[in-house]
């Protein structure tokens, strides 16, 4: 979703990740997350693990988790589609408490989007039985905490759809 005035700022999300003791972000940047990248690079408590293709994120996160760390993945909804077999064969089959921050490309509250990536996103998550939350403003950021709590309570992946582009700090 393109906005003329950003209502979602990186510190809101990063502070929530830190509050929930996230150790690693495994990611591939998308068009909405440039400013978040710069802040994350400067954040000493969170290690960034960049990948070449989104399917890698699920497996790297599984390795981090089984090794005792607390990762999240941060990819665009198009990357969720690409990651399908990894979400199935690792996240779901091994009961991994994984929070997936998902850039919701094409999302609009008006209900009409030309972007098929947006039209398929929630249907795909429904098909896999993956619950999800929506973040559009700084005030929504605490839904990350809800997602983390649910993921670890249910031992399942949980999505957090990021429905707005980031503004600078």
């Amino acid at each position: 979703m393109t906005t003329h005035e950003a209502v979602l700022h990186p510190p809101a999300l990063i502070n929530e990740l830190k509050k929930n003791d996230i150790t690693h972000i495994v990611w591939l940047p998308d068009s909405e997350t440039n400013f978040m990248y710069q802040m994350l690079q400067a954040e000493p408590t969170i290690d960034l693990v960049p990948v070449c293709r989104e399917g890698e994120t699920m497996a790297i996160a599984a390795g981090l988790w089984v090794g005792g760390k607390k990762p999240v993945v941060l990819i665009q909804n198009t990357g969720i589609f690409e990651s399908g077999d990894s979400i199935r064969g690792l996240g779901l089959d091994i009961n991994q408490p994984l929070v997936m921050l998902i850039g919701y490309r094409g999302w609009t509250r008006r209900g009409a989007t030309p972007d098929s990536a947006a039209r398929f996103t929630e249907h795909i998550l429904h098909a896999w039985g993956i619950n999800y939350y929506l973040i559009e403003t700084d005030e929504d950021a605490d839904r990350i905490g809800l997602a983390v709590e649910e993921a670890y309570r249910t031992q399942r992946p949980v999505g957090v759809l990021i429905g707005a582009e980031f503004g600078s700090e």
Partner: protein
Amino acid sequence: MINNQDAVKAIDNKRDGAIIVPTMNANNVHFGLPTVTSNQEMDLPVSGAMGKASSLALGLALAQPDKKVFCLDGDGSLLMNLGTLVTLSNKAPKNLYHFLFNNNVYAVTGGQPIPGAEVSDWEGMAKGAGYASVFSFDNLEDLTTGLEEVLACEGPVFIHLRVEPEVENTPVQFRQRPSRTVQQAFKDLPQALGVK
């Protein structure tokens, strides 16, 4: 060429507490790591998520920097996730050893040749991606004597093994399944590491 079981046995003999992430032929119940392992609780087999053994191994290596992590990968598996060579060398974990069991075929589906079987330069790809060291072995004697030098190197290290194509033609529904499930392995390893 090296027999698969001889290769996993040689690697297991040198593991010295390492975590091993095997997939495909290296994880075969008849001649893979499950048949010879000296420390099952530190084995993390990958069967779902095709191609992702090296990615899982990277995550483990980053999480446990004081432990060596061996990935026993397949050539068809690695082809499905070739970007991993760059992802892995970008983070450059010093404790990661990426073994490639190269038999030039998709052994588990009946032995069809993998794309580029006779022309791909695996060592060149690993070197070009930025691995710290690259080795290649095509016989057991050299592998057995060379492992000490391999494991003395700081990673990430890529070790190309030319192995025999032991092809599986039994229909999937009649194949012997591992007695230890992936789900069990994901419970055992954190306990063995003392992290959960």
